[in-house]
């Protein structure tokens, strides 16, 4: 048995909850997620209030392509499942699978970002700029803020993979993986409301 394997054998069953610092990190992160709920809640409320104010700009019904939205939804939903698999691999102390599943999550997150950048580029060409109308400003603020969260998540989980490679899985790195997966799930939950309230409702009128 190699040194690394012997070390993994001594890790407790749920290494993210093994130390007080780890448990505090997870709890503190939930407080942050409570704050994020307020942030996105107010952005959603603003969008709901302003979504009818299109001035001379295009309306959501004219702009939105539901096929693209469906593809983005499927990608993000799948990436949420792969980050669950990453945490399960961590609980089985399988560092290789943990890194692979985190890698798949990062790739899917990157794919989502590419779709969103293409979408925004397309909209600007259709005359739907940030300052076109109250609808367009609140749209870009809400959906762009979510996209920024995805970009941060891709960067964060990417760096975590490197740290796992360098430092291995231990009671310091395990809470980081767990917290990152919570963040990623939260972003997926926010997207559920974005595709419902922004895109599907926009299509209905």
């Amino acid at each position, binding site marked *: 048995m190699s040194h690394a394997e012997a070390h993994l054998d001594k890790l407790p*069953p*749920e290494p993210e909850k093994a130390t007080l610092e780890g448990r505090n990190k997870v*709890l503190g992160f*939930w*407080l942050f*997620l*409570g*704050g*994020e*709920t*307020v942030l*996105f*809640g*107010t952005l*959603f*409320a*603003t969008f*709901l*209030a302003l979504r*009818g104010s299109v001035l001379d700009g295009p309306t959501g019904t004219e702009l939105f392509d*539901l096929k693209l939205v*469906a593809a983005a*939804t*499927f990608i993000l*939903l*799948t990436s*949420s*499942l792969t980050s*669950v*698999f990453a945490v*399960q691999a961590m*609980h089985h102390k399988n560092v290789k699978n943990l890194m692979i599943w985190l890698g798949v999550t990062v790739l899917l997150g990157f794919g989502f970002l590419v779709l969103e950048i293409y979408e925004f580029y397309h909209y600007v060409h259709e005359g739907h700029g940030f300052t076109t109308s109250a609808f367009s400003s609140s749209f870009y603020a809400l959906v762009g803020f979510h996209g920024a969260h995805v970009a941060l998540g891709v960067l964060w989980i990417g760096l975590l993979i490197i740290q796992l490679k360098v430092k291995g899985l231990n009671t310091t790195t395990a809470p980081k993986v767990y917290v990152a997966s*919570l963040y990623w*799930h*939260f972003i*997926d*939950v926010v997207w*559920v*409301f974005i*595709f*419902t*309230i922004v895109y*599907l*409702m926009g*299509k*209905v*009128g």
Partner: protein
Amino acid sequence: MEANQEQVQDRVKRGTIHEGPKNHIIAFVISIFLTLLAFMAVANTALDATFIKIFIVILAIFQAVIQLAFWMHMKDRGHFFQILFLATGTFVAITAFIMAIYWVWW
């Protein structure tokens, strides 16, 4: 045998045994199903617009609850503060929603 001992220890400490992927895959299938249902409701032009809006929002809330419970482990024991934090955030968010609706439609 070794794994079994570990599970027993785990049960003594936290009251749960480490779960397999089954629940998470069920949550994924339910999420996909709810998403498809929402897209299909919007594609169906025979339905009333107000009905569709209410229907898809209910589907979204349902999907969010499932993902929070299973993927973010909120259904597990020892998540009181997690629920309190998120509920507080949701309370403020709902206040903002009511403000937006009151401000615009009345």
